[in-house]
């Protein structure tokens, strides 16, 4: 099943490990915080994505299976 990468912006403190391990899907903004590709993770990158999730020192990165609910107002 297609998974998407999501970052918990409250937990994230801008370590930047995710961007190093998964540059195809994660870039850092000018303040060091990750900009994550919102689309489904291509199967070829699945292993790298899991590695990035495991490596995040702040446990801020998650791979989610279902379609994500929108944030509420």
């Amino acid at each position, binding site marked *: 099943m297609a998974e998407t990468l999501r970052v918990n912006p*409250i937990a994230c403190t801008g370590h930047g490990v995710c961007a190093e391990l998964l540059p195809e899907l994660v870039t850092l903004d000018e303040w060091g915080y990750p900009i994550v590709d919102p689309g489904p993770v291509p199967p070829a990158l699945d292993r790298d994505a899991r590695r990035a999730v495991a490596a995040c020192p702040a446990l801020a990165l998650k791979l989610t299976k279902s379609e994500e609910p929108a944030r*509420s107002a």
Partner: protein
Amino acid sequence: MSTAVNQSAPGGAARQAAAGLPRLLPQTPEDLRAHLGRYGPTPYRGRTGALIADVEASGLTGRGGAAFPVHRKLAAVARAGVRQGRTVVVANGAESEPASRKDELLLQLAPNLVLDGLQLTAEAVGAAEAHLYLHAAPGPQILRALAERAARGLDRVAVTITQAPPRFLAGQETAVVNRLGGGPALPTFQPPRVSERGLGGAPTLVQNVETLAHLALIARYGPRWFRAVGTAAEPGSMLTTIYRPDAKAHVREAAIGTPLRTLLGDGAEIQAWLVGGYHGTWLPLPDAAGITLDNASLRRFGAAAGAGVLAALPADRCGLTEAARVAGYLAAESAGQCGPCLNGLPRIAAALAELAGSGHRRQTLADLKRWSGLVEGRGACNHPDGTVRFVRSALTVFEPEIRRHARGQCSATNRRPFLPLPDGLPTSEEDWI
């Protein structure tokens, strides 16, 4: 600023009555006796879920700003409650939008309608715990209403009152649950949604107090009655807080679909409209003059009704300055939890302040646009998104003013601030409790 809150628009009272309005607001505060005399007792259905079908048929959407279909929230919480065994309902009267006065007035004039709605939703989702979350200390009308209802045994679920801190984010759904749980009124990351796991881990229904009042009437008069005003796609009425050039807040109940010019006016003394409060959208005049108070119409200009704050900016003010003031407030009210919002909003506000000053660097506008793109969608709540929408629409609508300021000029002849902002910005953790 004293809140002169009056309901009827000059000359509009007859039109309103013909339309079956007002529905929610009596002329004077109604005690329980008057309320029961007018509406009868709380129409409990006798089982959970029964009300939800009527709410769905009525097409009621949330009146707190997000306009989410109420029946879907009710159904989600009820379903999750069956799995979990426990649910909680919250009447959200935080009214964190500084320019909004409707919830405050509703709670003064018709607290029993709100409390009826709260009890009815508690029954509908099987909740044994109910909360009333208020912007300020509870007024005498609310306290009296609760006492009178308790004396009559009208309320099946006890209601706990909690006061929200005066923060812009205090009324956000996850912030409400956070505060009620004893923490600060700060948003939390979703998932899980509060309708799945909220207060104390239980599925929690958070509903604006006006929404609950509409629901209390739908429970009595039915979905067809509710749909008698409004549009087919967006039925019913809504409370609006209106700011016209006299700068006093008017709260008025309007049928959805009412032309904005009826509510705000669009004469030569008005240069632009603001729709949807401080996370809302500036509308240019005369281009937007034909817009009506429904999201289908407002969408054409990228706007939405939100919590019903409508402002007509006088022609003698500087729109850029007003926007910069509000942007500064919105930045200061950031929770400071998410890197992009924390870093982006102050910079956006500072850039807008520079544009509103005299002469600005070419780079500033480009920076502003870049930062706006960077913060959107990257917070745990939609504070950055709403702020960017407000700022972007200001840059569009007040573009001629930006060019004037770049040359050291300004078209305003009146430097008095127009849009209301509270004093006192948060400086310590206590300010969020």
